[in-house]
């Protein structure tokens, strides 16, 4: 670049274009929701649809719940803030984890056929235990609230950057849009809307990722700029730490601090796609597919898993063009990179299209998570404790619960927005990876797993989650090191699950027979 490229600012045109584009996307999604709302007569239909969802919709919906505001928005912030060392949280190898989810998650259909309507209900069926169901439901609610915060920061930041609306108003607008859209839709509406949103952000993410590399002067110019860059703290203070390598000794609480942290981040990506309940729940409504159709699911997953890398490239491009200037202005800091690059490349139209993609990604994940949390309470806690509650009452309770589960993370985001979005979300991701990969996914395949193994894993995982380096870990060495903490949580969960399962009695063979039928 020979001339300095100014950092774009919102204009009345960009505000109108963004409002129209986001409004159109949400209206179309809500329209799909209304269509399915009319078909949805019971809790079962609201929760899992009719079990007839095909491979294309399943694949796109799965990538939509997987790739959240973290991928389509926060990843640019990671690349911009941490250089190459941010690529571990960008998820350069995220396809490994999601393809594992495709392979393991398909068995959820077996449990749906036996009556499971929520992910904890799969655990109940597997272990014949209401206790496991309730504990899994509670743990999911806590961890998903944390993860929801990230979606709000993504949407509200984009809204603020492109329309000039203030932070609180941006948050409120996004929350109202999300709540209305989820309440009318339910699973089937959500599943088809998710597919639409997954398709939208795949196309837009790829287009902007490739365009941003050329906009910044090409790959080698970007690489040169990153190699020469230093880490700048949120607030604008420059340090002596280079971000030109795949590790950066910024602080032990940063995952890319050293190779131990990198190893932990890689294992997190391997396990968390399956551990995320909003991901594995996609298979509850999937119909039986052929081998060829199964390949279609995997192909869609593979294509959309490149999208986070494309968005990460937008962050590298922004750093190459604007230096560390964005680190000086909160509360968005480097997370502003993707939106601003989209405005710099495409003006108001670019801002509109990219904002639509961010909303598609964040709303889809939020919708999947709010659905899970609402059904966790209505089904896994209320109905679990009071089996006589009618399906109609369950449906009503689930719909009403959408409101608090939209409001709680909203309040959190307003009062304490995380400075680097994806780094914050990785805390909840590690716990979900460690706990639910084993309690749900492995248990569907390992006959010897027991109820007490699952209970101990949930208890251990939740206790270790409190030792996150930014919570209590900083007071309890060596948990101030992110890699040590994450490995202790995930490998610890594996060890606790295995040892306690082997030390306790499994279900009798006659109860396991329907879950593990002999091959014909």
């Amino acid at each position, binding site marked *: 670049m020979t001339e300095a490229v100014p950092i774009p600012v919102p204009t009345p045109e960009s505000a109108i274009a963004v409002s129209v584009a986001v409004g159109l996307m949400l209206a179309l999604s809500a329209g799909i929701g209304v269509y399915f709302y009319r078909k949805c007569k019971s809790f079962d239909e609201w929760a899992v649809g009719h079990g007839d969802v095909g491979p294309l919709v399943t694949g796109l919906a799965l990538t939509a719940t997987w790739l959240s505001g973290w991928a389509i928005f926060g990843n640019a912030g990671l690349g911009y803030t941490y250089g*190459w060392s941010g*690529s571990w949280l960008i998820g*350069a*190898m*995220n*396809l*490994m984890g999601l*393809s*594992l989810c*495709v*392979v393991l998650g*398909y*068995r959820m*259909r*077996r449990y749906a*056929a036996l009556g499971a309507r929520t992910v904890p209900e799969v655990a109940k069926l597997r272990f014949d235990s209401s206790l496991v169901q309730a504990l899994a439901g509670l743990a999911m609610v806590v961890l998903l609230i944390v993860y929801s915060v990230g979606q709000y920061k993504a949407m509200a930041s984009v809204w603020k950057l492109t329309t000039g609306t203030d932070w609180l108003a941006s948050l409120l607008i996004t929350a109202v849009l999300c709540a209305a859209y989820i309440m009318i839709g339910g699973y089937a509406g959500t599943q088809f809307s998710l597919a639409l949103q997954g398709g939208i952000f795949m196309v837009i993410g790829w287009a902007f990722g490739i365009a941003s590399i050329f906009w910044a002067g090409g*790959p080698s110019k*970007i*690489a040169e700029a*990153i*190699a020469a860059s230093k880490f700048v703290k949120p607030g604008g203070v420059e340090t002596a730490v280079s971000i030109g*390598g*795949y590790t950066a000794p910024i602080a032990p609480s940063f995952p890319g601090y050293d*190779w131990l942290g*990198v*190893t932990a981040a*890689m294992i997190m990506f*391997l396990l968390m796609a399956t551990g995320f309940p909003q991901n594995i729940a996609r298979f509850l409504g999937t119909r*039986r597919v052929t*081998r060829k159709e*199964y*390949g279609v699911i*995997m192909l869609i*997953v*593979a294509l959309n*898993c*490149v999208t986070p*890398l494309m968005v*990460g*490239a937008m962050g590298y491009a922004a750093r190459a063009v604007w230096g560390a200037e964005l680190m000086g202005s909160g509360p968005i800091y480097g997370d502003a990179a993707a939106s601003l690059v989209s405005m710099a490349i495409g003006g108001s139209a670019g801002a509109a299209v990219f904002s639509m993609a961010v909303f598609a990604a964040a709303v889809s994940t939020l919708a999947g998570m709010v659905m899970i949390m609402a059904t966790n309470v209505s089904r896994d806690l209320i109905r679990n404790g009071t089996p006589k509650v009618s399906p109609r009452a369950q449906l009503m309770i689930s719909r009403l619960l959408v409101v608090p589960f939209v409001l709680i993370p909203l309040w959190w985001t307003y009062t304490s927005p995380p400075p680097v979005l994806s780094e914050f979300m990785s805390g909840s991701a590690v716990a979900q990876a460690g706990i639910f990969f084993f309690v749900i996914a492995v248990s569907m395949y390992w006959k010897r797993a027991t109820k007490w193994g699952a209970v101990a894993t949930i208890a251990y995982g939740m206790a270790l989650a409190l030792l996150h380096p930014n919570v209590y870990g900083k007071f309890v060495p060596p948990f101030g090191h992110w890699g040590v903490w994450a490995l202790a949580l995930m490998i610890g969960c594996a060890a606790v699950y295995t040892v306690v399962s082997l030390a306790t009695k499994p279900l009798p063979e006659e109860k396991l027979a329907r879950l593990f039928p002999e091959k014909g």
Partner: protein
Amino acid sequence: MKRNGKVLLGIVVLALCFASVPIVAYTLGGWYAYWGAALLSAAWATVLLWLRTTEFWEVD
């Protein structure tokens, strides 16, 4: 090739793909490591798909 041999080969390739990601990052770095991780992940997904559809296919 017998079933156990195919499964073992698949697992070895999966392990190699996973281990190669940080090795490429350490040795080559830059864009090579960035897009290399995506390519290695694609190879991993292909092997998983092959194992699932040929050796571990489930029918209702």
